[in-house]
């Protein structure tokens, strides 16, 4: 079942894996980030979303920001001992000079995409799970603006607005841009939950449209 959402936001960062620390974004939304928007509206273990097409509606523009972040990770043993004791200090402070790391970022701004995706039933689907049921659920929720968590564009702090695109609506045309985007991150392969591996595909934007291959196809390498 195919659906279409139009999303827009002030900022976006689809981080390139090789520049994960001093973030540099991909030019266009990754299929993984697009899927996360659909997941935010409706997801159950019974369904799995597959993004099929991405249309870029706004010209690609960049902005440079520096942000203070931290360098440490809260250790699991601290959490465990706090749970046992019933109280404890787990807080991390950015203005603690030792912990602070300033990270620069090259982000996208004023982004807007039209994302086409479809879902399929997974192995976890039971007898009562029908595609029609989930399709209706999704349509209802997307129209109302209901979501489990606020959809975001790459990073949680860059939240986005979404709206369901119905058949026959007046559509803004995608930008007039055709180029090769190189190898782009497709998604993560979660079959081994302890250590997911990344998947990549060769992305091309043709007249503002990026066609996304299916996860099992040969074009997705991982």
């Amino acid at each position, binding site marked *: 079942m195919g659906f279409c959402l139009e999303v827009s936001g002030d900022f976006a960062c689809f981080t*390139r*894996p*090789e*520049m*994960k*620390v*001093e973030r*540099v974004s991909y*030019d266009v939304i990754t299929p993984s980030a697009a899927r996360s928007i659909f997941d935010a509206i409706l997801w159950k273990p019974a369904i799995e979303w597959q993004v099929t097409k991405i249309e870029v509606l706004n010209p690609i523009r*960049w902005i*440079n920001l520096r942000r203070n*972040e*931290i*360098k*440490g*990770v809260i250790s699991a043993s601290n959490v465990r001992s706090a749970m046992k004791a019933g109280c404890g200090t787990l807080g991390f402070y950015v203005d603690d000079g030792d912990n602070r*790391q*300033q*990270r*620069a970022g*090259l982000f996208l701004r004023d982004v807007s995409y039209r994302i086409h995706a479809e879902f399929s039933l997974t192995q976890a689907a039971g007898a009562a799970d029908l595609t029609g049921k989930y399709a209706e659920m999704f349509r209802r929720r997307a129209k109302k603006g209901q979501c489990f968590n606020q959809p975001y564009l790459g990073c949680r702090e860059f939240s986005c607005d979404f709206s369901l695109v119905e058949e026959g609506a007046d559509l803004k045309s995608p930008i007039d841009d055709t180029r090769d*985007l*190189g*190898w782009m*991150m497709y998604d*993560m392969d979660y079959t081994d939950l302890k*250590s*997911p*591996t*990344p*998947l*990549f595909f*060769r992305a091309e934007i043709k007249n503002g449209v990026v066609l996304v291959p299916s996860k099992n196809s040969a074009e997705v*390498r*991982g």
Partner: protein
Amino acid sequence: MILQALCEYYQRKALDPQEALAPFGFEEKEIPFLIVLNSDGKFIQLLDTRDKDAVGKLRSRSHLVPKGWGRQGSKSYEIAYPLWDHYGYVLAQPKLDKPDAAPNPKDVEMAAKQHKAFCNIVDSIYEVFPNDKGVFAVKAFLANEVEKDKLKQSADWLECLKIKGCNLSFKLVDAEYLVCQSPDVKRWVAQSIKSDDSDTGVCLVSGERASIARLHPVIKGVGGTQSGGAAIASFNKDSFNSWNKEQGANSPVSEKTAFEYTTALNYLLRTQCPNRFQMGEISVVCWAEKNNSLEQAFPNFFTDPPSDNPDAGVAALKHIAGSLHNGAYQQPDGKDKFYLLGLSPNAARIAVRFWQVGTVAEFSERIGQWFSDIEISKSEKQLVPALKSLLRTTALLGEDKNMSPHLVGETVRAILQGLPLPENLLQSVIKRIKAEKGAVTFYRAALIKACLNRKFRFYRQTEQEVTVGLNKDEQRVGYRLGRLFAVLEKLQEDANPGLNATIRDRYYSSASCTPKSVFGTLMRLHTHHLKKLPNPAWQGAAEKNIGEIMDGIKEFPSHLNLEEQGLFAVGYYHQRQHRFVKNESTEGAV
């Protein structure tokens, strides 16, 4: 995209044997001294490879040597580099503070251990390739204490000791290349390329399945990073890891690709590279898909010309002007891709400030547009400014270190994408003008004109653009007020020659922000100045001028917004320039 473009640059260079960069397993290293041996291992001489460069400093020549893999930690003395290293490894020379000082006993011990490791590696190469003359000679030399002493007696040895940790290598007296560059040694290097048992994965640059680099080679040459080098893809703290993956597994890049892109980037960032320039804290490199003269001309648009070639800026401008006709690029190589990468330091990491991809045609056209935007009337001697000189005028005291790095990056991006300049830029320039009491210099006026014109072109196409020279028909009140201010200032200067502070010093800021409060006073003053003119004939000319300007001003506005303040500054500048452009025979006629 960035890494992929760098790898393509590496491959483009590899196609041309003259310009090829170091192959996999090798690196370019500066070796100041070479030990010249004959084929028996007897010491002939110590060769100094250093030349004086343009500044007069001695720089050693770079040679292609087998790559020195990293050595750190307490057992680092066990890792010696094949057939080249510093004098501790090569000759058991302990490090000294001064050439004639006595060494520390601990250092002597360390040097002895290092030397043993070096001899071991030479022996291991000899075992695999016993026929190589160079390796045989080196082995014989190292085994022979007499020869080593002869070296220490030679004339240049003290010079060598002066350089701390001086690198040494070997050369046969009758060979063109170094011992470590011989075909047999190259084969040995290829066989022994260390691949730690890292996992295989899909490389995100090439899409191929290959062994993934755990640590990428470092990038040296980005100003402001630590001297050991920094990395673009670096995960040096826990909070940067994803899914508990460590180091390179966070971003799988094959070892070959990692080598290629870092070698290409190090090559582009080397000092004296014509493709590289510095804008404040940002190191910028530019390159094209194929050989293109724009690569060398490009830096001259942005940065000051090098001291040995002050006409480089003019030459670059001519190059652009020659390739454009009516603003459109004419040459056949217009479709070649052109890349611009701006890198900023952050301790041991490198942040990408901006990354621009475009075609040679696009960039040339946009640069041409930029130069026509900053064109403003000027004296004959002044050259067209580079971007750095323009941006320096927004900095306190005109110093590079006070330039805002954000502003630099945004301005470069705006120029290359044909967008209006950042609002912040207009604000900074006007702020500096006011802080420096109305110092509207040529650079500042050019910048303001460019800001205004680009804004009008992008957002309000019906608005008339600011002209290059004085525009007497300009109706906008900001411009007219600027002109009026210039005329009144000149009148005051003529009436009171040798004045220390004119109305510019006292009134510029308030005249440009709140004209209504100030111009009343100024107009009142000017009647007195008219009477005090040394030559009464000038009175008529001055009154005529003032009248003509006032004709277009209906009333003095109470406030001028930022744009109008910009017009004020440009009008002021144009009017002042006007009297220099005409012949000076009518002195006093404003």
